[in-house]
């Protein structure tokens, strides 16, 4: 099936492609990639294995080099995609680059989709600050709330066979945040520990619960690292103690770190810091690399970071 190859590619930084089927998806992305190649832009495609395979035939014919990143291999965490995109841009020394990503897919649990929507708001911020064009693919059969969020976080949307500027685009990505569903309250039986400079106790607490949840030794280590980073951030950015809450579901162990600080930079933790830079600020990035899902809610009332690790 020939899709709509004549599609004009939107000349905006952050565009959403709401596709009806794989053929339309592949055709639109081929057009986007080809347009980039005509202007000499490097291209990154970040998507799941099956999606990359569906694209492969079209991309092979597109000409120049395309870098692919398999999101299945990179792990489930939607918080890693923006890091890949920003790193790709940084690796090209300020030259214009373009990226395709699909991080919202139908089988994703609701909390991962919410986080994906928050990441889209962050991608919109990153796009406005870098020579970067990002095309984000959305299955038209995704839920209406996901698609509505996509129309708000992307200035151009392909829908019903044509590109148009999105009437509900917010302009300010940060505006999406208050709309995010609030995190469900932890269960009554969740274990809690108040913390402030008792880092060693925090680590023992996290390790004990991780082991009780049946995590293998290396994942226990990862969870302890993640909780250590988040509780250290409280000491660095909040004015008083925080609360660590841990519980399990059938599928996951969940750790929540809550404090009175407010995250000043929404893009914190989305780009790997230069290893040779002595500045602080690697913690959240590390957390994103080792956890399966990191949910963040921040505002004047404080910050809650909830991390998930599959059992």
């Amino acid at each position, binding site marked *: 099936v020939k899709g709509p190859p004549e599609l004009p590619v939107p000349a905006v930084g952050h565009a959403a492609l709401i596709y009806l089927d794989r053929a339309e998806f592949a055709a639109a992305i081929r057009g986007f990639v080809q347009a980039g190649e005509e202007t000499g832009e490097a291209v990154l495609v970040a998507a799941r294995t099956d999606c990359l395979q569906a694209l492969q035939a079209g991309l092979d014919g597109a000409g120049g080099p395309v870098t692919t990143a398999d999101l299945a291999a990179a792990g489930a965490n939607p918080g890693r995609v923006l890091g890949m995109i920003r790193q790709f841009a940084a690796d090209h020394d300020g030259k214009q680059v373009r990226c395709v990503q699909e991080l919202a897919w139908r089988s994703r649990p609701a909390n991962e989709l919410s986080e994906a929507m928050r990441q889209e708001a962050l991608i919109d911020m990153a796009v406005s600050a870098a020579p970067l064009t990002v095309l984000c693919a959305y299955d038209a059969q995704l839920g209406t709330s996901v698609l509505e969020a996509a129309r708000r976080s992307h200035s151009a949307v392909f829908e019903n066979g044509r590109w148009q500027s999105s009437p509900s685009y917010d302009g300010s990505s940060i505006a999406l945040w208050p709309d995010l569903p609030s995190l469900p309250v932890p269960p009554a039986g969740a274990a809690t520990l108040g913390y402030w*400079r008792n*880092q*060693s*106790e925090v*680590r023992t607490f996290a390790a004990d619960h991780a082991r009780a949840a049946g995590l293998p*030794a*290396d994942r226990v*280590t*990862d969870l*302890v*690292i993640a909780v*250590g*980073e988040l509780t*250290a951030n409280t*000491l*660095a950015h909040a004015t008083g103690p925080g609360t660590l809450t841990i519980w399990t579901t059938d599928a996951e162990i969940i750790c929540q770190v809550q404090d009175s600080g407010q995250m000043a930079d929404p893009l914190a933790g989305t780009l*790997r*810091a230069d*290893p*040779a*830079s*002595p*500045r*602080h600020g*690697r*913690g959240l*990035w*590390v957390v994103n*690399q*080792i956890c399966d899902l990191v949910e963040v809610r921040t505002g004047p009332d404080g910050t809650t970071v909830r991390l998930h690790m599959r059992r």
Partner: protein
Amino acid sequence: VEETWLSAESRGDSMVVTIHGDLDIVTSPQLDDCLTRAQGTHNRVILDLSDVDFLDTSALAVIVGHWKKLEAAGGTLALAGARYRYTKTLWITGLADKLTLYETLDEGLAAQAKAARSAGR
């Protein structure tokens, strides 16, 4: 609660700073002080991490800061004995690829002594 303690010892051309315990946002200022003192007398420093049980990114920031200062002064900072399981943040952040890492302190001392000789002290 186990304590974190550090010791510094001059070994030939190098100052060896040995850390026992955990390096985190609470304990890394100790490392900062220790490395500042070490640089008063030596421009070759080896951090012995073989007894480190935890290393967070605030400690990494301290290590990188001193590494850069030593390099700018024509010196070196190397790590010895880091165990992946306990100091995994070195690898996650990519720092393990940038810093000089020795399997053991003895290996580090030998290599540093050789480097000092070839540099004509």
